């Protein structure tokens, strides 16, 4: 057994801490739960989006050569965690992933300019193939990047398609990538196109993982506060281990999940060819943790937790609502297995 001697440093640099604090403050001020509610059912708040542009939330992730600030995934996950913590009604994850993709190909330059000017919100169609699919951020985006056949394609529309009602009140919409109302341009072909598309999918999963950790943390705080305050049988309910230990399990998932996300992020940014299983791993773990966290919070809050008045249900809806667009999360374990064990061999085929 040969041991790979590597550092295991999960900490943030001073700059990263400052960035995190800035976005924490921003979302705390700009995105209270009332704002999330008032953006329902459409899942988009135009004014918040504008203010977020003022924070350069999308531009920061674009390389300097493309007119951005050149931040890496290490920084973007800090923003994404705060987005998730407030379940902010803005498609920032999709937009930043798509903008980075546009910056990677010369043919994307014009659209990227429009994105940085704020006139276009771009997104990514997560499933390879040319037909109709539900696209995250698709009801506010005018540009979607997709893999159609072997081509990486930019599909543009004059105006976004109608949102479809959904459990997570997310801004998702059907995009018919072969339809007559989209104008298509090829950004890259063959191997290059497929690789870029795969990389974008991995980036989307990493940032979404970070958002899910943020969601879990936020509902944990709601549950802990209630467990301290609520009295039953003459004692705060937090003294009952059935309550406290389920919150402890959530706290462990949040802390450990965050470490996993950081590790996956670091590899994707610095050594993308190594330990590729970490991205599907982080994504699967984070979505599972968020489902558990929101379930526990709704339960700890008692009957009130189950009402639409409770903030816990805002998170409960989005734990699935922000992820299922990518498909059944259990499939991530398949991707993970392919990376770790090599592709399955079909006997007799």
């Amino acid at each position, binding site marked *: 057994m040969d041991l790979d001697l590597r550092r295991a440093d999960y900490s943030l640099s001073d700059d990263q801490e400052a960035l995190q604090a800035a976005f924490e403050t921003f979302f705390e001020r700009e995105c209270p739960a009332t704002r999330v509610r008032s953006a329902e059912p459409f899942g988009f708040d135009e004014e918040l989006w504008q203010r977020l542009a003022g924070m350069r939330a999308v531009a920061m992730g674009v390389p300097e050569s493309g007119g951005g600030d050149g931040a890496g995934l290490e920084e973007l996950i800090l923003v994404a965690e705060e987005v998730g913590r407030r379940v902010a009604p803005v498609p920032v994850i999709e937009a930043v992933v798509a903008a980075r993709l546009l910056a990677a190909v010369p043919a994307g330059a014009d659209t990227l300019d429009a994105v940085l000017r704020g006139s276009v919100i771009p997104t990514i169609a997560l499933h390879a193939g040319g037909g109709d699919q539900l696209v995250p951020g698709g009801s506010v985006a005018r540009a979607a990047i997709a893999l159609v056949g072997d081509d990486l394609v930019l599909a543009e529309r004059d105006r976004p398609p109608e949102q479809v009602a959904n459990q997570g009140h997310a801004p998702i919409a059907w995009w018919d990538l072969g339809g007559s109302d989209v104008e298509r341009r090829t950004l890259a072909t063959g191997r290059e196109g497929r690789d870029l598309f795969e990389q974008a999918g991995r980036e989307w999963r990493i940032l979404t993982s970070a958002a899910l950790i943020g969601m879990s943390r936020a509902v944990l705080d709601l549950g802990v506060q209630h467990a301290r305050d609520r009295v039953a049988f003459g*004692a705060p309910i937090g003294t009952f281990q059935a309550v406290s230990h389920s919150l402890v399990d959530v706290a462990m998932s949040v802390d450990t999940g965050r470490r996993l996300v950081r590790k996956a992020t670091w590899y994707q940014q610095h050594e993308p060819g190594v330990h590729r299983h970490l991205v599907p791993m982080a994504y699967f773990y984070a979505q599972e943790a968020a489902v558990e966290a929101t379930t526990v919070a709704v339960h700890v809050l008692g009957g009130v937790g189950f009402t639409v008045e409770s903030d816990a249900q805002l998170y409960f809806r989005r734990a699935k609502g922000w992820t299922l667009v990518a498909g059944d999360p259990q499939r991530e374990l398949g991707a993970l297995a392919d990376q770790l064990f090599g592709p399955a061999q079909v006997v007799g085929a």
Partner: protein
Amino acid sequence: MDFSIIELDDETARFRDEVREFCKRYITAEVLDAEYRDGNGFDLELHMALGERGWILPTWAKEDGGAGLTGLKASILALELEAHHAPSITKGTTTLVLPAVMRWGTDELKAEVVPGVARGDIRFCLGYTEPDSGSDVAAARTRAFRDGDEWVIDGQKMFTTGAQNCQYSFLLTRTNPDAAKHKGLTMFLCPLDHAEIQAIRTLGGERTNMVFYDGVRIPDRYRLGPVDQGWMVLLGPLNAEHAMADSAPPVTLDSPGGMYGISAVFALEAAVAWAATPGPDGRRPIDDPLVRHRLARHALDVEMATIATGPAGRIISSEVAIRVGADLIDMVGPRGLLPRGEKGTVEDGWIEHSHRFAQGTATYGGTTDVFRNIIAERVLGLPRSAPPTKSPS
């Protein structure tokens, strides 16, 4: 964030080779067989050989019996010993107690024991648990009475692991039964020559012990810290033991949760090797979707056990080991039940062993429930789970 490869300079690379040679020489198949059979958590020849190189206290200065190793070299040493399955429980308890001896022992006591600890011929075990007290450590009833310059110890300890390998027990006693629970305790480094040791066998194959102290007389120099303030003395090693579960070692290398997660790592490696080998029908189990999906899930869990830290690391690594062990044994089928050395056993019996062994990790060193209480109170700031103060009527 930094997960980059640590490039070893020539000297450090040579050190690693030296450690590997050492492991090959001293951690032989016979040593591993004996450990598997007897569960001693200790091998005398290996331990003395470590001592000879200053590797029992590797970061201590050479003149103090250590090897003056840098943190990186000490981590390499620890990781290689772990990877080679070195029996290490008694080394662990010895080095856990040593700081308390350094902090509270008189010069005379230190001169008596410390050089021997470094050499390897003096070893310590932990004497906290009793038949009637475990999680509630401070409820210990073993009595110590003062008699002039001596103390007389009366009582029984349970689960004093490694006592058969040790010369001294880090012993928790009650000196004042009238004081509040935490205020009447005193710690000793009690010589074991007059205590009676009886073996207890465990499900995981480890040996631990009952130890009887029947009027054992020891001089006052074996007392550690002030009379009736043993709780304060105990807290150092107790907290260190709790932190031992911390899977982030000093030189920031990922490691599988110390002794808690390691059985899951070995069992998973064994299962992956098994799954990649074609069976009698010519098919590899890894190509069976049912196997593949579960192995992927277990790989995820083992990764979590490796990267979790602090009290969460203690809980997660232990519970992952239990969960993964129970499913891997299912996966390999009836052969999963066959132990090391049996005809048809899978991958040296690691999976069979892991399923039994993992269970104990949730109990010793403070149970997973006790650790959940610790996180609830100290991390989440929840009110303490209140034990009933009156007996229910």
